[in-house]
């Protein structure tokens, strides 16, 4: 693993789909966040361990410009803030066991303009396209994959 910097702000680099080239680029995850997630139990740890890298590398869709989500950088019009979306092969139950993904949900990984993945979670899917998140048309400025 590559660690970018040391101490409190150290980040780990993971491979992610590059919507600009259809190749692979690096996305960072802070070690501090990994430690925080580790304290939340085996479900959260398993999602971070297995689902986040899978969605980053094999997203069904990537959206850019998080619109009415206040995650965006208003001064840049949300440029560079992206949301990777997909349906992972597994979900994880409270006892840590793997199970099929949830029927009506997708998994989202949010990255900021510095390509740091800072949040991830299950969300309800679009009823008209279960591969995409509910409200994606209103939430994002454009789909780039």
């Amino acid at each position: 693993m590559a660690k970018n910097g040391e101490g409190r702000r150290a980040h780990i680099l993971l491979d992610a789909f590059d919507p600009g080239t259809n190749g692979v680029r690096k996305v960072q995850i802070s070690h501090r966040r990994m430690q925080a997630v580790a304290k939340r139990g085996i479900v959260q740890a398993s999602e971070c361990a297995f689902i986040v890298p899978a969605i980053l590398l094999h997203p069904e869709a990537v959206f850019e410009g998080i619109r009415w989500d206040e995650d965006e950088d208003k001064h840049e019009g949300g440029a560079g803030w992206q949301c990777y979306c997909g349906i992972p092969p597994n979900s994880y139950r409270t006892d840590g066991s793997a199970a099929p993904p949830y029927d009506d949900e997708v998994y989202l990984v949010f990255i900021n303009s510095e390509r740091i993945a800072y949040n991830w979670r299950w969300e309800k899917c679009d009823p008209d396209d279960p591969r995409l998140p509910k409200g994606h048309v209103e939430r994002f400025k454009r789909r780039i994959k």
Partner: protein
Amino acid sequence: MSSSDFAAEMLQLAQEAPAFQPSAIYDPDGDCIEFIAKPDSFYGERIDDLVTVYYSHESKEIVGSLIKSVSKFYREVLQRVPGFKIEIHDGRVRLVHIFRARLWTSDLGPEDVVTVTYQKLLRVAEDTNVEAELACA
């Protein structure tokens, strides 16, 4: 780092971690506070431009939330409710005060579904009594 190395490191961290405790942690990378009340698997539902509520897959109860754009929220609250400052001690604030500040500066009625959800979230925050860092304070 390969995905398998990353997974191994993440699971190792989880093995070494102390027992679960409710937490509210500010993340400067997203300028957000993530509140986790229970170690359940959850899904998120946005209720407005500030908060995404986390619901347990198993119980469907509220088990946490994400408060976004914390710096902007803090600036706006101080403009409308300057007394909010007195709830901040050494850069930390009880999470209930953040939700209460949002409710008190909202134009929504008490019966509105968003208001009702905030009230539920407020009760969960009260039960856990967690504090969050306000890095911008």
